[in-house]
């Protein structure tokens, strides 16, 4: 379908980018309902008209999973939203997830013709992706990608986060017999325990997982590969190859005095209690401490999630404490903007030095030091330098430390022959995602150390493709 002639490019480029409807800040900071409410069909079709359907679509090169972006957008303009969804799902296993949590502003939308050449706001690719995925989920007519033939070859994903799910989606389409092993009692990994309901509702994740189940992917919960059974055990059960997507593991701490007092959490723990275990709901047994004066240490997306949760749990002051300025914060601009609107205080250029506790061991105060920016460091960001004599103490009753994670140690510990970096990440060939152990591939945070949902998904897809190549040659050898 060619819609280029329907409207002149000049008219298309004069349309103004749609803005995402959202819950009012003073209301949403008291509930866990999604902040963004999604485009209406009218808004989506109007926005779709802005896309110029470029002959050389640069947006696709900006997408880690190579979605055919103009094709799905033009199908929205056409009005065939279900067909648009089918196109999205050719390359993206989790469109409803990606439409919500991908940093499009540094990927497809950054590579959009509007951004690069017209110096205008890019087509709202992320909003449109979400619209299509939601439309399909709400239509009750979810398409299940067809599987042409099954080869019966057993492969496994270790971990059911974004890398594992993307891998499973591609492998099942290629006809493999896919099992996804998950350590927790819920499928979805970081999508479930990490990203809060107000950014990504769990039911959205579950609907995407349901499609994978319908396609034939098997899920084994409460199963830790390397503990419940080893890779060797699974090989004996007939598994021919593995994709390790076991994710980020151990939370980093700053190792400053008082960091183990009651009321000081890692962001992983705080988020897991609230997101996975529903600690904020009294009907659930898991507790969480969340007080009136909450300090979240760090400047990434996880820190933003944690601080916004603390507000929703009733904090009077929810503060971000970050040692660099706001420009250097790794969090997405949208998250910073949303946080500010919700009344989060930003204490940039501040760094914690020590925590103090009351007579019960509960944190009650912290000492912070002011910082200034020096020369750029290895990361290209200006290095924070402490200002001598600027220390002061402030009252806090809950602290969430969100200063990064180290890779999950379980798989490397259980496979001594696996080559790992000094940081504990699994070393892979970047073109094939193949690790040092034959038949074992890896992707996502266990390789990258800490990245995004979509990069993990890109790894999962790449691992699927090269595992297919690898198995095709191995199986050829066996049959010849």
């Amino acid at each position, binding site marked *: 379908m060619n819609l280029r002639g329907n409207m002149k490019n000049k008219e298309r480029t004069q349309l103004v980018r749609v803005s995402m409807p959202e819950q009012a800040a003073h209301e949403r900071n008291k509930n866990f309902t999604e902040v963004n409410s999604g485009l209406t069909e009218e808004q989506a079709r109007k926005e779709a008209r802005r896309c110029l359907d470029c002959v050389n679509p640069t947006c696709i090169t900006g997408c880690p999973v190579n979605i055919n972006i103009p094709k799905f957008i033009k199908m929205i303009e056409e009005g065939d939203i279900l067909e648009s969804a089918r196109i999205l799902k050719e390359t993206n296993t989790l469109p409803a997830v990606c439409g919500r949590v991908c940093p499009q502003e540094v990927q497809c939308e950054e590579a959009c013709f509007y951004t690069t050449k017209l110096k205008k706001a890019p087509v709202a690719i992320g909003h449109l992706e979400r619209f299509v995925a939601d439309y399909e989920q709400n239509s009750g007519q979810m398409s299940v990608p067809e599987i042409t033939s099954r080869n019966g070859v057993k492969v496994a994903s270790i971990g059911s986060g974004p890398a594992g799910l993307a891998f499973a989606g591609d492998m099942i389409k290629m006809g493999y017999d896919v099992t996804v092993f998950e350590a927790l*009692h819920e499928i979805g990994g970081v999508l479930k325990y990490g990203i809060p309901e107000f950014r990504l509702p769990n039911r959205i994740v579950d609907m995407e997982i349901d499609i994978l189940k319908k396609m034939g992917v098997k899920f084994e*919960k409460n199963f*830790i590969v390397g503990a419940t059974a080893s890779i060797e055990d699974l090989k004996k059960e007939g598994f021919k190859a593995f994709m390790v997507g076991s994710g*980020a593991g151990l*939370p980093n701490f700053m190792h400053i005095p008082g960091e*183990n007092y009651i009321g000081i959490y890692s962001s992983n723990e705080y988020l897991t209690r609230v997101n996975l275990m529903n600690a904020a709901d009294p*009907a659930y047994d898991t*507790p969480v401490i969340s007080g009136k004066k909450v300090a979240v240490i760090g400047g990434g997306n996880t820190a933003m999630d944690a601080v916004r949760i603390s507000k929703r749990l009733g904090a009077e002051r929810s503060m971000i404490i970050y040692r660099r300025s706001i420009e250097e914060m790794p969090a997405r601009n949208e998250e910073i903007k949303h946080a500010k609107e919700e009344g989060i205080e930003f204490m940039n250029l501040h760094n914690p030095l020590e925590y103090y506790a009351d007579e019960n061991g509960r944190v009650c105060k912290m000492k912070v030091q002011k910082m200034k920016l020096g020369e750029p460091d290895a990361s290209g960001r200006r290095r924070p330098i402490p200002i001598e004599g600027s220390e002061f103490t402030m009252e806090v009753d809950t602290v969430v430390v969100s200063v990064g994670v180290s890779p999950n140690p379980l798989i490397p510990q259980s496979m001594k022959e696996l080559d790992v970096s000094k940081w504990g990440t699994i070393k892979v060939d970047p073109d094939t995602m193949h690790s040092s152990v034959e038949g074992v591939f890896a992707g996502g945070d266990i390789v990258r150390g800490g990245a995004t949902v979509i990069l993990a998904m890109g790894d999962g897809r790449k691992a699927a493709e090269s595992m297919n190549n690898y198995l095709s040659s191995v199986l050829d050898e066996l049959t010849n």
Partner: protein
Amino acid sequence: MNKIIEKEYFSDAVVKLVLEAPAIAKSKKAGHFVIVKSGEKGERIPLTIAGSDLEKGTITLIIQKVGVTSTKLCDLEVGDEITDVVGPLGKPTHIKKVGTVLASGGGVGVAPLLPIVEAFKEAGNRVITVLAARTKELIILEEQIHQHSDEVIIMTDDGSYGKKGLVTHGLEEVIEREKVDFAVTVGPAIMMKYVALLTEKYGIPTEASLNTLMVDGTGMCGACRVTVGGKTKFVCVDGPEFDAHQVDFDEMMLRLESYKPSEAEAYESFLNSNLKS
């Protein structure tokens, strides 16, 4: 789902459950633990594996009623299913032949101690075990411990069984009598702290199996962090056993109290709702 196939009351507050978990039964070693979650709204808690039967594909857990979650587990009956059981987790006990091993267990800590005692005995060590509890009813697994120990000393706070006194009295009696090469201790944090102080005084290398709070149990959340030798360690993946002389037990005890106020409140309302129903 893991079906309960056997249940036994050791006392009003201590229950033994044998449940189906064939993969865990096959992979588990002494010192390992599992994370258990019962019901959709349940909490994840760590429980050390007290035993397993490879043929039947079962594991044994010994649970003491202390709060909502443990009481719910203790209230399950034969035929009921536990929603989620995952493991085996943690590093297994480093079993070696050292000579004489002095083991000590307090309260339900005797349950995880049993497979450790068994393994040290099997490795050819002389094993002396001191079991301690407040009172006679709380001494558990005495017979099984006897089977795998060269000598068993029972200590009760009130003198209702064995000798009257604390676990450390029993330990010191042995240490003063004969050469001890290695000590291992499992029990309440306060008990392990004093055991560690005692064996440190006598220069006996000692391992303690720590029972901290956990959420995921797989090295993700950091709830179980403890300070060992001045460094932060995660009990779920670095432990659960550590050099007892390096563990900061005071900090560990403090962190174990994290949810005491809310737990007490939840427990009371749980008991009240149970009375009404």
